[in-house]
């Protein structure tokens, strides 16, 4: 039975399709106090006075927590990238003297129900003295007075001698790209519940989080609790994409409120709060220079990245650092220098979001490829071919380090083959004819983008495997599913390894009792790290089972073998013994094993994207008609689910490029506080997909896997932007941003280029 590599349907689906799956809000009960946050209405202000008298007088008010009510010694929120060299700009659970973004929590109101909580929150009177807001990386206003500037992190990389190359290069290209601010926007907002666990003396914290283990550690640290007294559970999660990979003030405050008021506390943000106070993504400006020879070979590159990371606490240097560390993508480019700087601003904190720096790197690099091709009169596929690393060069040490993740070493791939497969899939050779034959008023464009991204982030992943009382296998994993089908994939991988039906395996996730210490779900690591850990645990269980049966029968362990999903005794009784049988014979106690998988470095998946867009010049409407991806995530465990990840990611990247943007007014007030203003892609915007897989196994893990969760999103912006640039090239319209290229933006660009009076055709 070979299960690995088959499109197994998902075990998660039944509950989701019938509405019986339990999400965070489904755990709320009438006896729970409902928490509502009072949030800052200013981007930057001094808090002069907080008056809770009227609010406390409300008959449904259970209590209020302000900064003054927090126990002394309450810790600050951590930045999840934990870079040792960043400035200490950590946010408190509740603002006391100063607020630094609109939506920052100032007080937590507890009421008997959600409607009353909203009323009471409005009765908390806070007097503010507004301060000038820093709304970009060069603003004068200083957020943290203890620091002389808003720069909180800086990192640089140097490979070779770029100065020497630039001095003599045939062609030097210089560009600047602006990346706009995004909201990951999972359909389920954030939420948390804290209550005393009955009979154990512990506190139970439920949260819609990608990182329950880290949340447990940090919550214990911040509140000075014994971590053994705290259990964190992530229920079914309605999407995360990185925005549920932060330690949030509200998650800690429900815990504090449950302790203070001695009753269960429920909190769930609404969509407006989500747009104000959930971490945001991407915003940075990158200046790039490239030195290119006459043949189109990129000899050197130089880049500086200034990231607008908001009011800090989410993450300080990781995303801009990653963008710079991977800027060169799959191309050789022997000389390289980069600098990335992070600046705090009066916006909601920036964090990782699907791709986390790679979309920016890919767009910069792939735009430069197209611009060089244009300048030198080269074909866009040819210029890429001339620069791609070759299959016989792996492993390729890039001479630089990824912040907090070690040296960048590409482990595997066949980049030229990947490019060719995508060119074929999109019909690259036929495109010029198609472009020339476009209808009147329509411009067609084709864009390419090659992605290389770090995945399977280690260094270790635990797994526990046991035989339950009912004879089923239970895999206890630290990978918390956020919609990608983790349970199906892990059951499939383990079943394949053991030779047992996947239905005999239960997957337990999201509970710190099952896995007290595990990194969590991020960086496209779930299937690779969780899958390899599951296999190790499977091997350990087989060994344990052989010992148990050997002892039971009084024979040497070598006499007991494992074949076709069951134990057998060499020359012994013919009946094979399943783990279920064995547990019935001897009890399940000895059939409980733990394993930890340590990878040999991060695996780097790759993929080549191509987008074909159509621009209606009369309306400015851009449609992505066709989209091709050849993806190399090593050995594919479940092609149905990998394709789902790729397509979902591509459409997120499409939304970011065509519609989505977080806007702020001059005072720092968010202008996008709902789905009316923050436009997500809908079904009519989905392109026709052609997806292909190229499997070059990673040598870094026994399964040969590389991650796939972020790949679609990472390449889509670059491919679509390049396609738009291609379509607009005849009008001499330069493209220097990630968009969004809304109809209005596109129309304005066309009008400016063609002239107000000129007929649009």
């Amino acid at each position, binding site marked *: 039975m070979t299960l690995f590599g088959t499109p197994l349907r998902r075990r998660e689906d039944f509950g989701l399709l019938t509405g019986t799956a339990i999400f965070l809000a489904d755990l709320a009960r009438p006896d729970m106090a409902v928490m509502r946050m009072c949030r800052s209405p200013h981007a930057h202000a001094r808090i002069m006075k907080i008056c809770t008298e009227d609010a406390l007088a409300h008959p449904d008010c259970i209590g209020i927590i302000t900064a003054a009510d927090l126990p002394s010694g309450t810790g600050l929120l951590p930045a999840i990238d934990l870079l040792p060299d960043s400035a200490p700009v950590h946010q408190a659970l509740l603002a006391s003297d100063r607020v630094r973004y609109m939506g920052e929590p100032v007080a937590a109101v507890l009421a008997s129900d959600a409607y009353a909580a909203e009323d009471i929150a409005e009765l908390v009177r806070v007097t503010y003295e507004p301060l000038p807001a820093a709304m970009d990386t060069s603003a004068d206003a200083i957020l943290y007075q203890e620091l002389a500037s808003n720069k909180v992190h800086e990192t640089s990389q140097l490979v070779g001698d770029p100065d020497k190359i630039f001095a003599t290069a045939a062609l030097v290209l210089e560009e600047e790209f602006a990346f706009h601010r995004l909201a990951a926007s999972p359909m389920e907002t954030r939420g948390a519940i804290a209550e005393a666990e009955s009979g154990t003396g512990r506190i139970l914290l439920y949260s819609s989080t990608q990182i329950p283990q880290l949340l447990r550690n940090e919550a214990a640290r911040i509140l000075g609790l014994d971590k053994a007294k705290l259990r964190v559970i992530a229920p079914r999660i*309605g999407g995360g994409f990185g925005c549920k990979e932060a330690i949030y003030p509200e998650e800690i405050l429900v815990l504090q409120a449950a302790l203070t008021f001695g009753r269960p506390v429920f909190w769930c943000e609404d969509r407006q709060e989500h747009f104000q106070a959930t971490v945001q993504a991407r915003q940075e400006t990158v200046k790039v220079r490239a030195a290119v020879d006459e043949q189109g070979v990129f000899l050197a590159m130089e880049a500086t990245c200034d990231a607008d990371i908001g009011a800090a606490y989410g993450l300080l240097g990781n995303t801009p650092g990653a963008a710079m560390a991977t800027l060169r993508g799959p191309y050789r480019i022997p000389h390289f220098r980069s600098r990335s700087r992070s600046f705090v601003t009066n916006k909601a904190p920036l964090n990782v979001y699907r791709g986390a720096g790679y979309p920016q790197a890919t767009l910069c690099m792939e735009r430069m490829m197209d611009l060089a091709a244009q300048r030198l009169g080269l074909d866009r596929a040819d210029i890429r071919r001339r620069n791609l690393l070759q299959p016989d060069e792996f492993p390729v040490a890039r001479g630089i380090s990824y912040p907090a993740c070690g040296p960048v070493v590409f482990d595997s791939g066949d980049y030229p083959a990947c490019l060719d497969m995508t060119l074929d899939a999109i019909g690259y050779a036929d495109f010029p004819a198609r472009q020339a034959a476009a209808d009147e008023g329509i411009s067609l464009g084709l864009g390419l983008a090659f992605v290389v991204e770090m995945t399977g982030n280690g260094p270790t992943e635990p797994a526990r495997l046991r035989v339950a009382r009912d004879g089923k296998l239970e895999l206890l994993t630290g990978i918390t599913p956020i919609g990608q089908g983790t349970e199906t994939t892990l059951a499939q991988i383990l079943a394949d390894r053991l030779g047992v039906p996947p239905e005999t395996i239960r997957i337990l996730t999201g509970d710190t009792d099952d896995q007290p210490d595990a990194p969590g779900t991020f960086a496209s690591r779930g299937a690779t790290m969780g899958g390899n850990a599951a296999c190790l645990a499977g091997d350990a269980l087989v060994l344990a089972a052989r010992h148990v049966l050997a002892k039971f029968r009084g024979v040497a362990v070598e006499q007991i073998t494992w074949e076709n999903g069951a134990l057998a005794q060499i020359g012994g009784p013919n009946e094979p013994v399943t783990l279920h049988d064995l547990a019935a014979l001897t009890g399940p106690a000895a059939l409980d094993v733990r394993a930890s998988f340590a990878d040999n470095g991060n695996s780097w998946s790759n993929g080549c994207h191509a987008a074909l867009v159509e621009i209606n010049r009369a309306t400015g409407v851009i449609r992505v008609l066709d989209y091709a991806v050849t993806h190399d995530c090593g050995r594919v465990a479940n092609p149905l689910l990998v394709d789902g990840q790729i397509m979902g990611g591509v459409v997120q990247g499409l939304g970011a490029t065509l519609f989505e943007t977080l806007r702020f007014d001059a005072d720092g007030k968010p202008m996008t506080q709902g789905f009316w203003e923050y436009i997500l892609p809908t*079904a009519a915007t989905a392109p026709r997909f052609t997806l292909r897989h190229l499997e070059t196994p990673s040598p870094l893990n026994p399964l040969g896997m590389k991650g796939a969760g972020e790949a679609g999103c990472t390449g889509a912006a670059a491919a679509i932007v390049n396609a738009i640039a291609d379509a607009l090239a005849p009008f001499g319209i330069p493209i220097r941003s990630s968009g969004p290229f809304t109809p209005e933006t596109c129309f304005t660009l066309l009008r400016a280029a063609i002239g107000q009076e000129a007929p649009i055709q």
Partner: protein
Amino acid sequence: MDARMDIIVQVDGRQIAASVRPRMLLSDFLRCHGRALGVHIGCGQGVCGACTVVLDGVPVRACTILAVQADEATVQTVSSQAALEGFAGEGLTPLQAAFREHHALQCGFCTPGLLVATAVFLKENQYPTHEEILAHLNHHLCRCTGYANIIAAITSVVQ
């Protein structure tokens, strides 16, 4: 503080009587009083469609309707999916099975609203064109799938 109004709503075949605030949203009523936990609140702004339920035969956004407006009405949520599809068999309905077969859901938060709305859509238009399916789906946000598999699932049921 608020006045209360007594209402009776039939939710998935059960009579739910409650004394509610006039401003209580139907979505909250269905979840709190009806324990209809398949009604998911995605935006509370009437945009995303996750909270879609069928009110007296018409798909509505439960987050932008007051519970008192549903007094004496019949509400069907995803728990009534079989009835909405006219399916008398056991287990998953044809639409639910198609969603699973085509991997048309990932996190699944938007799925119940999409299923009930699509059941009504297909009842009113048995053989929709591709464009009509897209126009129907444009009223629902899904952040995970990229829609292609949802379109494929619905198309497979139509054929």
